[in-house]
């Protein structure tokens, strides 16, 4: 059953969630990210630059602290983990879909306790794209996504001007309705058709598309191609394309000692960084930019699919918007398809000539 909630009821809903940790999009120093809120969420935004994966997989987090015996650390001691339920407001459907990839990765044979604990405690409220979204860099529909998709979503909200149209996708979504009580009212058919219109308009607003099956096929025969040198020539290795990617999950683990206290932290890392895979001996399996860019594309469109059965891209367009040298993932994929055809033709001609 669907409901609506008036935008003027958001403060009351926030009050009703007093036993929860409430997260939502906030602008900090000009950058939209997700933070723990101390007042009702502001959902009038496009999409965040920092993806909401940060709620479950923070950029830096303490894994545990070290026990001390005299001057030395002699063991690990986990701090008390939070246990309150979480609610995350204003997650775009592409980012929610990315959660499901991270779910697979962080439970792949071994359970990652930090990510999984938070995910299990969380209710994800997604927001159908409207207004500033989708924008010129969005392409979720090319990767089996939708601006109103429900993968990884517990409750899907659609902006109807003075109210949100609320669809409960999971039991957690239904529990939210129950908790909100009379703040939510049963939707009428007009609400439903208005929401449908918003959803259809969102799909129409997406201008960029590509055929991901064709891309995967093309990549398979391009591994040795000079193409990767061409597309990575302008790359400065800043790592933004990966750090801000909602599906990227690479991390580094480091010990930090400050004023006699020691802890182990993990921090987002990027395959675009030169020393990411470098061995202690100094040997580096991917010493060149072309190899690191190639690894990123192959990982997204082939490797994750082979291992986890999903594509490592949800079409959010952040890597396009954030790249300081305008490397565009769709251009790269389209170029790969064109290049693969070209090189195939050249090979065929070469064989004919021989």
């Amino acid at each position, binding site marked *: 059953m669907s409901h609506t909630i008036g935008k003027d009821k958001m403060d009351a809903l926030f009050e009703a969630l007093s036993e929860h940790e409430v997260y939502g999009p906030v602008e900090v120093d000009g950058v939209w990210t997700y933070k723990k809120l101390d007042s009702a969420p502001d959902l009038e935004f496009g999409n965040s630059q920092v993806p909401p994966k940060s709620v479950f997989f923070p950029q830096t987090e303490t*894994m*545990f602290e*070290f026990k001390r*015996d005299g001057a*030395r*650390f*002699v*063991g*690990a001691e*986990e701090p008390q*983990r939070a246990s309150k339920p979480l609610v995350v407001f204003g997650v775009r459907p592409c980012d929610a879909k990315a959660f499901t990839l991270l779910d697979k*990765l*962080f439970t*792949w*044979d*071994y*359970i*990652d*306790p930090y990510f*999984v*604990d938070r995910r299990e405690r969380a209710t994800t409220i997604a927001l159908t794209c409207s207004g500033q979204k989708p924008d010129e860099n969005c392409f979720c529909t090319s990767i089996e996504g939708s601006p109103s998709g429900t993968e990884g979503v517990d409750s899907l909200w659609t902006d109807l001007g003075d109210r949100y149209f609320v669809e409960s996708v999971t039991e957690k979504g239904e529990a939210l309705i129950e908790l909100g009580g009379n703040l939510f009212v049963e939707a009428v058919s007009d609400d439903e058709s208005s929401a449908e219109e918003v959803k259809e308009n969102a799909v129409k607003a997406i201008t960029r598309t590509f055929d991901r099956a064709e891309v995967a096929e093309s990549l398979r025969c391009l*591994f040795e191609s000079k193409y990767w040198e061409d597309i990575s020539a302008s790359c400065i290795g800043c790592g933004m394309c990966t750090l801000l990617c909602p599906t990227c*999950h*690479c*991390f*580094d*683990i*480091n*010990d930090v*000692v400050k004023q006699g206290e*020691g802890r*182990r932290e993990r921090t987002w*890392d990027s*395959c675009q960084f030169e020393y*990411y*895979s*470098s*061995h*202690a*001996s100094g*040997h580096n*399996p*991917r010493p060149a930019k072309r*190899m690191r860019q190639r*690894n990123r594309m*192959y*990982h997204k469109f*082939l*490797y994750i699919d*082979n*291992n986890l059965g999903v594509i490592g891209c949800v079409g959010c367009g952040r890597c396009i918007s954030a790249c300081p040298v305008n490397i565009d993932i769709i251009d790269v994929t389209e170029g790969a398809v064109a290049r693969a055809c070209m090189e195939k033709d050249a090979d065929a001609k070469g064989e004919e000539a021989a």
Partner: protein
Amino acid sequence: MTDNIYKPVTATVLDIQLEAGGGRPIRTFKMQIDDESEREDFLHKPGQFCIVSHFGTGESVFAISSFPNTDGIVEVSAMRVGNVTGKLHELDVGDKVGLRGPYGNDFPVDDWKGKNMVFIGAGIGISPVRSVYQWVLHPDHRKDYGDVTLIYGARTPADLAYKEEFKEIEARDDLDLWLCIDWKFGPDGPIEAASHEDWPAINMKSPGDTEIPAGQNRFTCFVPQLVEVVKPSPENSIVVTCGPPIAIKFITQALEKLGWSSDQIYTTLENRMKCGIGKCGRCNIGDIYVCKHGPVFTYQEVKEMVPEF
């Protein structure tokens, strides 16, 4: 609440052996997990690896070189190359470290029953090989396998690891042991005259034609050349080899010359890792995660990987 896979258990250093000196010394650390209830969880299989913490400095990944046990005893051999290994090399007996693991796949020692076993280690690469030859040579298992040949080389006689253990191995009559130390190089290539007194040089141009004096089992040469001298037969046999990438390359070439196929040759890959459990990303070779799909691979599998080692 979920158990924390990243949290190491505390272990005490029981023994430290200097295996090789020089600028990048190698030490073997024998550690025992403190909490008895944690010890059984650490029963590893030959070929698996573990992650050692120097609390406050960080973690490093090592092949477990010791025999599988439920006493929580874990041995690793570490070369001093970086921050963590630098601190490990400063440890004393009785100091505390952290351990995670065992992780990764293992050598299929049960599938190899009835086969002749050839072990080839180059430098510190002997460390992961050790866990398998110890398994095969164990009194409970030795009868399960055919002939055993052990080929091992290091830079200098002083750099040969596990010296005490090799004395015992050499005294056994149920295996062939072959050792070598590296050529010294001058500006014009290898210096034959620089070979060690008790370590005669092999025929450099054609190692396979080297005349072997009776009882002579140690030579001056590189490990791949020693393989050509020893000429292990591929008949009903398995090779387990590990060493620096360049050594592996030439060892496998030498074996292929002798008629070995690449699915008879097993090795372990040692990529840079952080998590060790397929999450942090960096150890991938194409879609292969060395930590999860490996570290043990056949040479055939290695050849099929994308060329990005």
